[in-house]
């Protein structure tokens, strides 16, 4: 059992959890941040994507104890000062979700991608988003929303 502190969504929080506990479960079960989703547990579906120092990262495989000193952003912290991130705005404009379960991971992947590549081609978007599964297959709308967001960054 480890005792460590994490910086999540700009706040430092103390965590008591086993050292091998993945960040995903610390966020969900210990910090009450349930927006980050469990999908596969092996880094294949992207539902658990968060930002670690700005990089889109799968939280289901990442021991939280190793995240000390890193800036972690989850879907709950993506909007700033109650202003939605342009990716979230685009998701709304396009009316992307069906069941909605994978969308937090999709949005986190898209926002990290656009911060590095603010003017992507459609092929760039397709490659960047390929790691995130949407079982409802709302892929057309995800693709469209990322393109719209890139114009509103």
């Amino acid at each position, binding site marked *: *059992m480890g005792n460590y502190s994490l910086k999540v969504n700009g706040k430092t929080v103390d965590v008591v*959890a*086993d050292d*091998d*506990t*993945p960040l995903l*479960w610390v966020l*969900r*079960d*210990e910090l*009450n*941040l*349930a*927006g*980050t*989703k*469990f*999908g*596969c*547990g*092996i880094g*294949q*579906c992207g*539902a658990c994507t968060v930002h670690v120092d700005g990089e889109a990262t799968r939280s289901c495989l990442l021991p939280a104890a190793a995240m000390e000193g890193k800036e972690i952003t*989850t*879907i*709950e912290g*993506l*909007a700033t000062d109650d202003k*939605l991130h342009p990716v*979230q705005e685009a*998701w*709304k404009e396009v*009316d992307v*979700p*069906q*069941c*909605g*379960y*994978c*969308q*937090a991971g999709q*949005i986190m992947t898209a926002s990290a991608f656009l911060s590095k590549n603010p003017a992507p081609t459609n092929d760039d*978007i*397709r490659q960047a*988003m*390929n*790691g*995130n*599964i*949407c*079982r*409802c*297959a*709302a*892929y*057309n*709308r*995800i*693709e469209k929303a990322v393109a719209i967001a890139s114009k509103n960054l």
Partner: protein
Amino acid sequence: MKQENKMVFSRRNFIRTSALASGGIIIGVNFLGACKETAAPPVDIAQLNFQDFNAFIKIAENGYVTIFSPNPEIGQGVKTSMPMIIAEELDVPWEHVSVEQAPLNNESFQRQVAGGSQSIRFGWDSLRQTGATAKLMLIQAAATRWGVEPNTCTASDGVITNGKGETLGYGDVVNDAAQLEVPENATLKETKDYKIIGKDATNVDIDDIITGKPLFGLDYVAEGMKYVSVLRPPAFGQTLKGFDDTEAKKVSGVTEVVQFGDKIAVLANNTWAAMKGKKALIPEWESDGKLESTEHHDQKLNALLNGGKLTIAREDGNVNKAFAEADQVVERTYESPFLPHNCMEPMNFYANVTADKVHLVGPIQTPAGTARQIADILERDEKDIHLEMTRMGGGFGRRLYGDFAREAARISDLTKKPVKVIFSREDDMAAGTYRPAIKYRIKASLKDGKVTGYHLKEASVNSNMYGLIPNFFPAGAIANYKVETGNYQSNITTGAWRAPYTNFLAFAEQSFFDELAEILEVDAVQLRLDLLDNVDEGADERIQYSASRMKETIKLAADKGNWGKSDANTYQGFAAYYSHNTHVAEVAEVTLENGLPKVKKVTVAVDCGIVVNPTGAKNQVEGGVIDGIGHAMYGDLLFNDGQPKATNFDAYRLIRMDETPIVETHFVENNLSPTGLGEPGLPPAGGALANAIKLATGQRLLKQPFAKDLGKISKDFKS
């Protein structure tokens, strides 16, 4: 028109109203009529419990409206579209409406189920009547206040206006309206006057979804709740002989290990500890020897097709005579594997069984049936069962089955603790209720350029096509027609999977028609139109597809999809299918990249009657088409000694963005009652794609997943 709903209502029986102690009115409705007379009208919403909750609409003194959407939301959009129908007839601005999920109420709501794409179709009449009746009561209350006749007043956008031009808001008169008798004579709007229906309404939960609010079953937490991981037999046909839980109990955070039946539950203070505890269990399994493999299913299904015992599901004329007299007989066999549902949110459920009540919370497509089953297994009165529905991270049929909820209830009952059972992805894929493996053999006779006979055999695992499916097209279009079905009984659990049976049947038939068109040297679209010309509409009540609506849908798809006019590097495939009361036609376009086909675009025409929420409707069609293509291309669950060979996404391939076509949807415009869209877009997709691939590569695909045969073209193609 036979498509119109035949339901009959007595408004006095299916709508009730009551004043709210806090001010405002609550309007209760029985979803399909026949409200139980014993159900007392509620008084204060804060005091309502699940048994007497009997409400669809709450109108507050400020005129704002809350609509409790009755049916479970699995991503099909009913939480948005069903309230839209009420709001239209109530005539309130959509911005003044908020929507909440209604809890399970056996007393008040019938068919509180998400399945079969039927929510909108069954709700259409009662939802409109409820809105219109409420509006009329508000008008009557305002007219009384003014001392004028109600018929001199009108109401629109939440405001009632009298002949002198004076106005009252709905909120101004709700308390008076709550004292009135429920009127019988509310008239419904004409479709031309619709202001909400037919306009895009964004998903009502969009803000919560995009900001990560806890909406789903997996997000639900309760005070003192234990997280539970369950170890189940890894293979179908195995039972638990014994187990050693010494190491599991040493995992920090694990609080208890308990056996129930052939399963072992590990209770813990968090999910990770429960999962680790489960992995540390040392079980001993035994089997009764019936551990089935894919090769075994293959043999059994082939045996059924090759002279096994089949049951006739429909027979017209004499197919044997047609075959004997034919110029040519064509026969093909189509094969499909088992498929898991793979909802993105793995199965989970919360249960707290106490002496007072059984509290259940989670994602379930069949709340009423599940509550009944749990009452049975716990030997409790159904009145003790309080079930709350959460938003569902996908359903696709898997959440029709309440096995996970029953597990949670049993574990809570055994341990006397509030528990939440959480499946890992491996649990979810290995303890499935799969789409069964199915084979179709279709034989047709051709004579003088016409299709004269059609004989379809279905060999399936555990169950066969049901209801009216044997009467779907081409039933009624070919004089000599026969459908026979048979199944092999397996211990592998199977069940409904998005568009049951038709998800593969449509591929088989639509591929077969393409071959017939090739042989007859007629255009593939024209062949279907010609066959539909043979249908005597209304002559056979088992035939519920409409030949005229189907022809119109086919023509719209062909027109919008530029059928027959593609450039030299684009190959088109066509399919059309009626299912779940909705007519759909699709044109798939494929190009070749390094010799391998890639689907670029699918143009879809849909006749689902009135389109309630176009953005939501298109989303369903886009998803259905891509889902159909994804599973036709890649979906494959093989078994070895009773055990699925793939249990996570490293070994089981789902379609990803880079493999998806652009889907363009067009609706046939009419004023007919709306029908569902959760499923009908899917069935034609695989056939349209296979027909385009045939044109592109020369290869006729008869087996799903296509990736296996396409892999034979190129070793670069990952199957």
